[in-house]
């Protein structure tokens, strides 16, 4: 059975699309996200967490998870979950794939998404005392004072 059919059979509410580039894109509701990830890992055998990141869709935020199997030319699965922009919250999947730990921290750092149940959710790339917001949001404003440009000869 094709991957898309398997997923719709198990999760009828999930929106499954096949991209023209050979990827299976699955959009799940935030409340199904953790359950879906568990099914994908334990039921379908997607053992390799390649990447987790976010996207700002301006009306909502999206968490994107790229999963693969350790088999040559295996299926390419992209899991997406859209969360509210005002109160972005989603369950952490670190207990399923420990490798997404830092990816989730980075997504929190860059988009402000709260991963509930993450063991150590702190800023990772920006300093811990950073007050300037989340830089990868589309409406991010750099509030740092402008530096005067030094030109040789200016005294």
């Amino acid at each position: 059975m094709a991957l898309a059919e398997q997923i719709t059979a198990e999760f009828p509410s999930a929106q499954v699309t096949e991209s023209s580039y050979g990827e299976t894109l699955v959009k799940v509701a935030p409340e199904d996200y953790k359950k879906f990830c568990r099914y994908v890992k334990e039921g379908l055998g997607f053992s390799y967490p390649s990447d987790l990141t976010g996207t700002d869709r301006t009306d909502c935020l999206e968490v994107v998870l790229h999963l693969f199997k350790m088999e040559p030319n295996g299926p390419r699965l992209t899991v997406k979950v859209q969360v509210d922009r005002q109160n972005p919250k989603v369950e952490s999947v670190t207990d399923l794939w420990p490798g997404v730990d830092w990816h989730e921290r980075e997504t929190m750092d860059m988009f402000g998404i709260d991963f509930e149940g993450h063991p150590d959710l702190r800023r990772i790339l920006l300093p811990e005392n950073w007050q300037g917001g989340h830089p990868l949001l589309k409406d991010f404003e750099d509030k740092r004072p402008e530096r005067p440009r030094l030109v040789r000869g200016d005294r």
Partner: protein
Amino acid sequence: MALTQEREITVNMGPQHPSTHGVLRMIVKLDGETVVEAKPDIGYLHRCFEKLAEQKTYPQVITFTDRTDYLSAMTNEWAFVLGIEKLLGIEVPERAEYIRVIVAELQRIASHLIWFGTFSLDLGAATPFIYAFREREVIYDLFESISGGRLLYNYFRIGGLRNDFPPGWKEKVLEFLEYLEKKALPEYHKLFTGNRIVEVRTQGVGVLKPEVAIAYGASGPVLRGSGVDWDLRRDVPYGYYHKFDWQVITEKAGDVFARYLVRMREVEQSIKIVRQALQGMPDGEFLGKVPKVLKPPKDSEFYVRHEGSRGEVGVYLISDGTPNPYRCHWRSPAFVHLQLVEPMAIGWKIADLVAILGSIDIVLGEVDR
């Protein structure tokens, strides 16, 4: 004097430390000399590459990709370019595909050589460092003569390459490969591989089990050093790698020494690939037909998986139909591997922590982006 003392002490390693290969801080908790906890603190080289990329056109971003992992710029450029070619359906001329393989494999050799040098320096051996840099220098000279740059090349173009080889380049490469294979590599093995001190300091140290490596998303030599037969060049093919006869190198032990051996033997495989590519290279164009303004279809997205020198480089591109990427995410192997330092180092001495940190081959420019 107080008679009672806390048993564990916290030691700060870095941000500037010779063994951290850039600006990395490790907060290490020690019991005597034994590591109890090792938390990397990163972000010192953060430039927000992903935000910058959103403000530039696709060809302009190529120069930034050089600067993520500056020791493996060619493979990074390739990873990024692959994504746009996929989104736009651009065909790359055959000759360009061959040259891409050649420069990427030379870059892999250069990167592994630097790793060999700095890793031996971490262990306290200064001689291999000088030897490795001597050979790397030749590769950088070769790259300089085709691209003009020594470290950051901006050589790849969407749909091909910026220019062809200069005359005489092929012979120089073949001469260098001959020298590397017959003289330099045996010299390294004599210096390092059978060395008793190296063996004691690396064998059995920092063992990474294959199932742990997969669950953490490890890739490249770190994964293959744990005995997992996995290489994106073969298993998720791109470029012309399927045309050449080469092997995926694995070592079963999963320790620091295994990761060392995998890299050294990969250099041999890369030599093999470059030779075949130089031999089979056809004449022809080096740049395909590409539109002046690149606008991938609206809402199209693709995730590239590319075998860089350090492991899986992932590029996630989303287009909104404009000449600028809507989102460009860079998944770097070293970022993922740095998470593995703590599980590997717990229970080992602080000197072993340095060896383990060295063995995963981090480049902080790539970790922080």
